[in-house]
């Protein structure tokens, strides 16, 4: 019917392109299952090593997300509400770690850890920053903190300033306004952003490759373990772990869509 009406080739073209692209993407995401086969999938998913790595990924991502949120929520609020000179430049520099490819960030982290606060910490506590799980957390924090601030800014941007003005005029202190008016209103956006930040932290590996070496069971969070096992020729582990990563990403995004938050990066 669409074809018969005038200019009907346009919706037909749109839907045709959509269908073919969808087919390619679905093939892309499911190719691992097809390659691995049912028997091997069961075998690898029943291994404890898989779940140890899974929990390592989950808890490191959770901890680094909580640090990112701690910094990101107030920073996002500041970026969203305050006007000051050169704020575009300021915001651009904050954004740098998310636009530059994470491998470069990993290389740069290598430099920062031999300098003032970090060398002091590593000397005092006698730990090698960047060789253990702290390095993983540092990489994840670096990549997600700016990302979190950006998402939070978007969430706060969606709340009209008027509500705060009303709250102020009724005599509430700024802090009370922030906690009682702004945060509850931005709640959905914050939770949605939190889930996205978590998924982003769990997906970080390029920085680990350059900055943190691999220690079995200590720093090999799942995306990084994929790279390591790829270099060990273990395609079974590689594909089964990428299935888990895909499932993690998909379930995080579904949870976010369910909560109904919406965010924008810029």
């Amino acid at each position, binding site marked *: 019917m669409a074809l018969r*009406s005038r*200019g009907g080739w346009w919706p037909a073209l*749109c*839907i045709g*392109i*959509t269908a073919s692209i*969808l087919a390619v*993407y679905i093939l*892309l*995401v499911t*190719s*691992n299952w097809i390659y691995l086969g049912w028997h091997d999938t069961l075998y690898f998913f029943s291994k404890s090593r898989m779940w140890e790595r899974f929990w390592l990924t989950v808890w490191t991502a959770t901890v680094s997300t909580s640090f990112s949120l701690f910094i*990101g929520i107030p*920073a996002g*609020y*500041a970026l969203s*509400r*305050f006007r000051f000179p050169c704020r*575009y430049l300021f*915001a651009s*520099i*904050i*954004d*740098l770690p998310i*636009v*530059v*490819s*994470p*491998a470069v960030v990993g*290389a*740069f982290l290598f*430099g*920062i850890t031999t300098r003032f606060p970090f060398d002091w910490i590593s000397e005092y506590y006698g730990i090698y920053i960047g060789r253990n799980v702290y390095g993983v957390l540092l990489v994840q924090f670096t990549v997600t*903190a*700016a990302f979190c*601030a950006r998402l939070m800014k978007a969430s706060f941007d969606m709340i009209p300033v008027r509500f705060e003005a009303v709250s102020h005029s009724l005599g509430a*202190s*700024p802090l009370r306004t*922030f906690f009682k008016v702004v945060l509850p209103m931005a709640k959905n956006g914050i939770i*949605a952003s939190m889930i996205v930040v978590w*998924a*982003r932290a769990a*997906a*970080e*590996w*390029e920085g680990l490759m*350059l900055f943190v070496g691999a220690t079995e069971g200590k720093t090999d969070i799942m*995306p990084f373990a*994929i*790279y390591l096992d*790829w270099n060990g020729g273990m395609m079974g582990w590689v*594909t089964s772990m*990428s299935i888990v*990563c895909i499932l993690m*990403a998909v379930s995080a995004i*579904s949870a*976010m*869509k369910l909560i109904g938050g919406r965010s*924008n990066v*810029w």
Partner: protein
Amino acid sequence: MSGKRRNRTIINAFFYSFAGFLFLYSAYLFLSNLDQLFVTEAAIKTREITDIWGEDREILNQFAGGFWKDPYFWKSLNLTLVITLITTLIATILGIPTAYALSRYRIPGKSVVEILFSSLMVMPGSVVGICLIVMFNYGPLWKLQNLLGFKFAHSIFPGMVIASLVLSFAFGMSAWKATFDSINPRFEQVARSLGSSRWRAFRTITFPLAKSGIVAGIILAWTRAMAEFSAVLFFCGTFRELPASRFSDLTKFLQMDQADWVSVAVWAQVEFGNIEYGFALAFVLVLLGGISVYVMHRIGAKGYVW
């Protein structure tokens, strides 16, 4: 009253301090590595004992290994820019109709499609790379490649474009879809009721309204393509050491032979021990990324992503 104002100043300073922390951290992260650009005595010594590497590791300049004198640097930059431009072009041509269809027409399982595209953005790069390798080297696409007589993996032209297109398309498409979502479909319906065809209604009504969003999406897609690393690393690898005869005439004409994707080149150079050279490339990437973000902020474009 003044007490209240001071109170507000303190609270504002509290919020500023977090943003300031992020700013300082980010600035420190990038500035603290500037000293990496200078060739140290130890690096020179290492090069002296590695005679098997020959002239390739010659230090052209004390600053940053003299990267601007090296054709490899310019070829790599050229390669990355050309491939990302091609990628952005393909993403735009395919992405706008897709975004339009997903935004306007009733498609079964639309929420599943949205989740699929959104989840690609938080998927680890290594997973995308593995998926590409497995998809193209096994099953129907492998047979297709055998029929065509050339392989997609480990190649510049189809390979790199495919690797950077996967995520760049997903980002751009989401941005364009959000733009089309924000435009009232009624305008188009009115135009059609007045006798305009579907294509004309899109071209004359929706497209001009969506222009700024489309531009933002293009910048977003390009930035994402520039930031691509793992998919290229897994799917394409490096090309610098290959003989000139392996490259097609087109590649040579475009000055893209024996060159690498810039972010892969950063990693490769740091891994080879050419630290100052690698960091010089990294700073070039940082500059490019910074400029594109600054432009995004300046024009006030909103790249809706989720």
